[in-house]
């Protein structure tokens, strides 16, 4: 299937191109995307949605199909569990090896994310935040691991599932610590004249109930989705432009950009995991606080 095939007109145009290429090169097969090159007349196989995000089932259990993103998420969870298990199953007073690395990670989450947002009484949420941070980070890193090469969070359901967990946690804590009435009362800003309050209150409540969790999930999803497309564009272009002549120079430029963008994506991956976790800490901290 050629990617990015829009409607019927485009389809026709593509067929015209195909006919032209058949005339010109007589033996070009456009249905094979990996064989497309500059000058073959087939056109650049642009990445897009859903063609670059569709994975067929690896296996089925009844109506349930298990695909590559699910497999990657499972592997990521296993990596996090196994790493921290091996780091802290037999803790030593003087840490070394995996324990050293694990302590570094936990201290980072505690001192950079948890303490500034929640203070000392939020320490009970350290395991939650540590697992959230490392799970998201490893999931994002899958974007640039060879063979995997798919950021799991670019399937919207995965960030939504994480968001539902966070949303449930801070709403439960907010209602538990502030009471149902107090929880909603604390959403509305203080010291506002009653006329303005009537206008602002629905907006504030909508912001807290719907828009805030939605943006939490969308931010992670959109960054990973865009990153995946960005890397695909230049990786595919490197291959597509690879030909004798001037195309070789373009291909080399595209390859250079792929390398630069891979480094850039590594930054984004860590940053998005950090932002998701720090916002979780902030929301839970806000729910624990009776007055804000």
């Amino acid at each position, binding site marked *: 299937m050629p990617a990015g095939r829009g409607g019927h007109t485009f389809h026709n145009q593509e067929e015209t191109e195909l006919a032209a290429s058949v005339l010109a090169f007589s033996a070009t097969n456009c249905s094979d995307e990996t064989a497309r090159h500059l000058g073959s007349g087939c056109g650049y196989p642009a990445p897009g949605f859903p063609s670059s995000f569709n994975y067929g089932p690896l296996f089925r259990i009844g109506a349930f199909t298990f695909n590559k993103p699910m497999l990657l998420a499972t592997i990521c969870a296993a990596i996090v569990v196994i790493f921290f298990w091996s780091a802290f199953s037999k803790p030593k007073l003087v840490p070394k090896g995996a324990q050293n690395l694990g302590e570094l990670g936990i201290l980072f989450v505690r001192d950079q994310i948890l303490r*500034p*947002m929640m203070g000392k009484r939020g320490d009970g949420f350290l395991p939650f935040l540590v697992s959230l941070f490392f799970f998201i980070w490893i999931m994002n890193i899958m974007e640039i691991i060879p063979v995997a090469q798919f950021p799991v969070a670019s399937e919207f359901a995965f960030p939504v599932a994480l968001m539902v967990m966070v949303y449930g946690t801070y709403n439960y804590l907010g209602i538990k610590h502030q009471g149902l009435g107090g929880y909603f009362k604390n959403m509305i800003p203080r010291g506002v004249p009653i006329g303005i309050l009537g206008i*602002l209150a629905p*907006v504030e409540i*909508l912001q807290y109930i*719907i*828009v805030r969790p939605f*943006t939490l999930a969308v931010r992670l999803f959109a960054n990973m989705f865009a990153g995946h497309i960005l890397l695909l564009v230049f990786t595919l272009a490197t291959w597509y432009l690879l030909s004798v002549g001037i195309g070789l120079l373009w291909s080399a430029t595209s390859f250079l950009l792929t390398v630069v963008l891979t480094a850039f994506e590594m930054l984004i991956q860590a940053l998005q995991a950090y932002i998701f976790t720090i916002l979780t800490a*902030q929301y839970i*901290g806000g729910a624990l606080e009776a007055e804000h």
Partner: protein
Amino acid sequence: MADNSSNAGWTIFGYLISGMIFYGGLGWLISRWTHITAIFPIGMLVGLGVGVFAVIYKYGRQ
């Protein structure tokens, strides 16, 4: 609690969207009820205005 700057942008975005969803939705319901189509876009604009006002109210006085 410390409102970190990376979140401030998204909170502002959230206010604008929330205002438009609420007052736009209200306008849509009224326009369906009264069959006056102009009320829906007016509601959207009012929502945008309220969103901007909420942002100014929350961040403009710091």
